[in-house]
């Protein structure tokens, strides 16, 4: 079973998260499963759901921030087993939620592959929020987790320079997509899908997220792999794919994001890892050396 891409959508109350999700549904080119991680405030457009009965929309109440966090994991587990399967999951965080917590669920729950963490920012109000009496640290924390920022309401902001400067300072590595009415295509919020050139960077790295492929020649040594993964720089956003671990007859599925990773037994799968990063990520020879170091000695 191919893991389902999962896009966490965070951002402060009023930034336009729900508008973005509605836009993605209205322009759907695939079967989306949507979870709304908020209490009692579901504003996903019912007409869109009705119009796209090819796409699955599942709504839950539950807040991953607090003690009922298990509900969202349960919602994801249900999405993963939908029949017919969904192509892509979107999880809308609550307006005060930490999008990283949702991303973490995608590592913990089997069957998902974590796409970029999208944080919607309000071009009109961002500066005020970042200086706000009660909300500044919440808004800042959301942006620190961003891998793509959707700077929304750009048409309403008389002078968006301040918002741009704040983003450049808080999340300098995250590409910023400026928009109005949260009208952003899913393609701009996904990691690139590329053919599989081996041992070299994807030449199409004009994209914000360069991709590099690695084919492990032998199984990994567990301790060395742990050391290599723990030492990866922040410019490496994801490592995912299949590998073999010392002594395991079966392949393992590896998913790495933000210094955390899950390695789970997978059965039969040809080895191969995809490494996705920012333009600042290490050059291919450096990456080859790092991952080769994790291989079992011959």
């Amino acid at each position, binding site marked *: 079973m191919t893991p389902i891409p999962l896009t966490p959508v965070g951002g*402060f*109350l*009023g930034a336009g998260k729900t508008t973005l999700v509605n836009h993605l549904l209205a322009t759907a080119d695939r079967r989306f499963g949507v979870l709304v991680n908020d*209490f*009692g*405030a*579901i504003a996903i457009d019912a007409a869109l759901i009705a119009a796209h009965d090819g796409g699955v929309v599942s709504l839950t*109440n539950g*807040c*991953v*921030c*607090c*003690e009922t*966090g*298990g*509900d*969202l*994991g*349960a919602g994801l*587990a249900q999405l993963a087993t939908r029949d017919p399967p969904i192509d892509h999951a979107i999880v809308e965080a*609550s*307006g*005060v939620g*930490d999008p990283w*917590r949702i991303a*973490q*669920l995608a*590592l*913990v*729950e*089997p069957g998902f592959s974590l796409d970029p963490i999208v944080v919607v920012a309000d071009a009109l109000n961002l500066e005020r929020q970042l200086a706000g009496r*009660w*909300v500044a*640290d*919440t808004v800042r924390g959301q942006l620190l987790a961003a891998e793509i920022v959707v700077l929304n309401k750009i048409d309403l902001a008389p002078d968006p320079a301040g918002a741009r400067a704040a983003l450049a300072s808080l999340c300098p590595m995250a590409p910023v997509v400026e928009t109005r009415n949260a009208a952003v295509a899913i393609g701009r919020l996904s990691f690139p899908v590329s053919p599989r050139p081996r041992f070299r960077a994807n030449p199409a790295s004009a994209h914000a997220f360069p991709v590099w492929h690695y084919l492990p020649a032998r199984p990994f040594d*567990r*301790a060395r*792999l*742990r050391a290599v*993964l*723990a030492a990866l720089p922040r410019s490496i956003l994801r490592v995912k794919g299949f590998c073999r*671990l010392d002594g395991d007859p079966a392949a*393992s599925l590896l998913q790495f994001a933000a*210094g*955390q*990773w*899950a*390695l*789970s*037994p997978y059965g039969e799968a040809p080895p191969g890892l995809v490494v996705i990063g920012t333009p600042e990520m290490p050059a291919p020879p450096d990456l080859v050396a790092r991952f080769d170091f994790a291989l079992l000695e011959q």
Partner: protein
Amino acid sequence: MPSPIQVFVARRFVTMNRSMPYATHVAVRDGRVLGMGGPEIRDAFGPAGFDDRFAGDIVVPGFVEGHGHAADGLMWRNTYAGYFPRTAPDGTRHAGFKSIAEVVAHLRRAEAAMTDLDRPLVAWGFDPIYFGGPRMTRADLDAISTRRLVVVAHVSGHILNVNGAVLERAGFSADSNLDGLVRDEGGQLTGELRGPAVMGRANRVTGDAGLSRLLDVAALRDFSRLTRRVGVTTSTDLANPLPDESVAALRAATAAEDFPLRLVPALRAREYSVPDGIARVAALRRHNTDKLHFGIAKLVVDGSIQGFSARLRWPGYHNGAPNGLWYVAPAELFGIVEAYHRAGIQLHIHTNGDEASELATEAVARANDAFPRAGHRHTLQHCQMADEAIFQRMRAAGMCVNLFANHIYYWGEQHRALTMGPSRADRLDACATALAVGVKLAIHSDTPVTPVDPLFTMWCAVNRITAEGRVLGEHERITAVEALRAVTLGAAYTVNLDHAVGSIDTGKFADFAVLDRDPLEVPSMEIRDIQVRAIVSGGTVFANA
């Protein structure tokens, strides 16, 4: 033909009724108090039966638990593994488990009594902070069973310990590196899981950790066994999503003649959109009876102090932990509070940190300034770190407070050492300041977080002694009579039932707690040792065995 009159006689009734604070005789008809006074009451209202079984006892108004959870009645279907003594609904007294070895031995006995290997062994209330360092490990729980799923939930709600079978079922391997998977020096998983992501998965693969089940009639009856033993005749259930099944269970349980408890369930407002929640409360009010009182709603603004998820003002957490979490965006809170306020629904707002209390107070003040409503009684629940300025604003806005006095005993040392530090910890649950400012006060247990026992809660507010014996905030101690008011009429006021319960007065329900000693006269350190001999609920006696 009028109903029969029953006259109860006691060594002393402490009525909490200002017109007649003490009595020896109380006449009851139709479950309500007809009058009280001296021996002259015996025949004052016509021929009466005479009940002198409490002639040597002290009788106080039945206690009101202003912040409890009826889910306490569900907990006991799992295995208690806590440090402190606790009594089960069936009366079994657990002394508390004083080491990991004692907990494990207890769980092993519980496991041996189980037959179906597919049933998980779930324990609750575990609290290793008093063990001086050692943590429970996977090996401890694997020694109980390597095949059965074993889950031990910490009392904080933020940590689980599990055995290898659960780790395997959840897919947590030592090769993974996920936040919340605790490791030993050798890099192996200890089976300790922290945080909602990994805990949620472990709970789900276990099938049912027992804490998310809906209340049923049996659970409510078990809850009433816990409350009656400690003298409680009215309790909140704060809060409940109140789906139809729960409402049916509440109605069925409270309709039984022998159900010795009035219940006040609060709607968990965030389970509904604002208009739906308001409509739900209005619809539920039609089911109100003498023993079932819908009409209040609950909001949660932040997390817990000991979980470092409460929102604090400067200087933040003493140990430098980052500020906690808003569970609702401030701007959204303003809108929700205003909508419920305008609809005439009383709100019970959970705030632990002082920044959360400040925000919630501001929300109520704004709503009440825009749409003044006398006697709204919106109440901050826990409100553990409020200072005098916050209490002043609460009073000006017409708010009440229900302080978590039990916290002083159970977590006071941790607050002093880790969360608040010395001096700030002294104002934890500042009962004296609240009263001095004139905020209507209740105090509570938050059962099952700490055991329901209003005499113990009184003891905490009066003495402010931590589990290690230290006085925490001597100037915030209150008198026994103030504390007794806070667990009777004060708590009744916060749930809009002060016209019906909380004191012994003509027209009110004949709800009493019968004690072997007078909490206003015993040395203050002995208040928690007073025995509850019986309760009277609506004139019917329920004696403790």
